[in-house]
């Protein structure tokens, strides 16, 4: 890792009286895929749009590929690939016409045909954008971001609203771009997306980074390896304090009738939990366990879920 592809220091941005970004520092080495993870309204989009040169910052410093927006905007734009959150491309143009249009803005880059092949839209080449599915539209948006052979790719919520198959297809495409050694900054509120694609993740909340590291480091940092969730008839008779006292359980909360336990040792915690349920004659209706994820990191740090509005 030589120089940083993207360096952000003490970034601040407020809209009227709402502070969107409040003192944010970020450094993305070249060749890395970096994820901004957080709930809606955390300031992810504002941050990425400031980096893209679309939004002016109030204060702080932003350096992209060693250049600054104030002085090098034209040169910078030639080297960035951008996909915005809510862009609707013109419905009346075909896939090929759209890609050709975007390609015409860049000095260099692959041919429109190659980009269309890259995002696997060859069969839809002559279809109007208005007839494409959500996943195909997102792939076209990605194609429009790739036409200039960018050194950095900015992706704002690339898979929001897509079905699982379309998401996986898009992830494959992004991974292909990663393999070419390019830098990616992406925002998402899907923890699985960040875990799968990103080498490093910054968890954002209320305009600040509250945790930073690789997905593995972040999960490890909360000292919890597993999460046990269950619901049961008569769960209200359970004493959370008793559950917390079980060997291998770090913490337990009740949320919407579902009890959630952060567990360090699954093999000792689960039998003890079951024994406790039998003792109180509480019938389990559901029991799940999974390895701790970034979602659990967020819950642990903020007490809220990522997708809470």
């Amino acid at each position, binding site marked *: 890792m030589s120089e940083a592809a993207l360096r952000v220091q003490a970034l601040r941005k407020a809209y009227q009286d709402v502070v969107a970004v409040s003192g944010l520092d970020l450094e993305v080495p070249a060749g890395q895929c970096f994820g901004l993870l957080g709930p809606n309204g955390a300031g992810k989009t504002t941050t990425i749009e400031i980096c893209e040169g679309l939004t002016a910052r109030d204060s702080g410093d932003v350096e992209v590929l060693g250049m600054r927006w104030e002085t090098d905007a034209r040169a910078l734009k*030639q080297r*960035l690939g951008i996909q915005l959150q809510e862009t609707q491309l*013109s419905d009346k143009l075909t896939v090929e016409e759209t890609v050709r249009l975007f390609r015409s*803005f860049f000095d260099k880059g692959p041919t429109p045909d190659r980009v269309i092949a890259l995002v696997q839209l060859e069969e839809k080449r002559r279809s109007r954008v208005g007839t494409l599915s959500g996943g195909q539209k997102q792939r076209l948006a990605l194609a429009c971001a790739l036409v200039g052979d960018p050194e950095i790719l900015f992706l704002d919520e690339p898979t929001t609203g897509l079905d699982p198959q379309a998401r996986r297809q898009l992830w494959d495409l992004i991974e292909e771009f990663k393999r070419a050694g390019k830098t990616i900054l992406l925002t998402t509120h899907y923890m699985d997306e960040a875990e799968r694609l990103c080498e490093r993740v910054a968890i954002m909340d209320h305009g600040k980074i509250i945790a930073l590291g690789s997905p593995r480091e972040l999960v490890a940092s909360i000292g919890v390896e597993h999460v046990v969730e269950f619901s049961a008839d008569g769960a209200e008779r359970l004493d959370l304090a008793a559950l917390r006292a079980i060997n291998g359980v770090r913490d337990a909360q009740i949320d919407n009738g579902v009890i959630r336990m952060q567990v360090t040792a699954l093999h000792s915690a689960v039998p003890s939990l079951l024994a406790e349920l039998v003792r109180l004659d509480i019938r389990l209706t559901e029991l799940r366990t999974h390895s701790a994820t970034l979602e659990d990191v967020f819950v642990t740090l903020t007490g809220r879920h990522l997708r809470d509005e």
Partner: protein
Amino acid sequence: MSDHPLYQLTLVRFREFLREPEALFWVFGFPLLLAAGLGLAFRNTPAEVLTIGVVGPELAAFENAPTLSVEPFAAVDEGLRALREGRVALLVERPANGSVLYHYDDTNPEGRDARLRADIAVQQNAGRTDPVAAQDELMREAGSRYIDFLIPGLLGMNLMGGSIWSMGFAIVDARRRKLMKRLIATPMPRHYFLLSFLISRLAMLVVEVGAFLGFAVLVFGVPIRGSLALVAAICVLGTLAFGALGLLLSSRAKTIEAASGLMNLTMLPMWILSGVFFSSQRFPDAVQPIIDALPLTALNDALRATMLQGATVTQIAPQLGVLAAWLAVCFPVALKLFRWR
């Protein structure tokens, strides 16, 4: 060359326009239909024959009046009923004392007209001779008919609507879709985006004006007495002025609804005041300076003067000045106010 961004952006303008059947109709079909309909409705006809009622047997007076058709009535009551029902425009009665009595509605032009014609016939039949000999020579020349007045007005209205709508809707739609925001995230030079509208508009103008004027000349025999080059120049200047106005109207709006309200609010007064369907001279003298300063009035007056009276560029200089002024004011203000997102 085919990869030049300006070329690609202009192509997009054409594609979006041609793939919208409604837009095609409003720009090309509608003006032709309107001209055809109005031309048919207001075609010039020779003086109409008016039907009058006469009480009693004295019909001889009207035998030499070809523009009057006489219906005899036995009684006054019967004749008055026919008058009330509009079957006759005038009822003529001859009281016993030798005078003549006319029943008619003086607020009805047909009634007044019938009164005049009938009286002439009655008086001449009674022996009156006119002291001055009068002769008629009829003028039904192209250029002074209603359709001749109408065509330049419709053309002007069309240029205004075409420029403002095509500009406004496309820009607001691109802003609403965040497509403009996406475009300015690319290295696209921003003025190319606006320039593409201008180029496509001017290219469309050739087809639009050509089809409309061709139709007017061939079907209605509307004259174009001034130079075609001057007519073309007026159309281009008008398009530029209205394009700038359209750009100004759409510089901020984020929804189609807001923009179309603003556009209609701007255009409606001009449809009425600027002499599209009837002469703007009908409005009071006090408001004439305001009407003259409207871009559509200037465009219509310039087109009419050039097409119908064969005016030269110096004769329509004031109108061209008004259009140029609108362009010079609207365009910089629009650029200053313009929001890309």
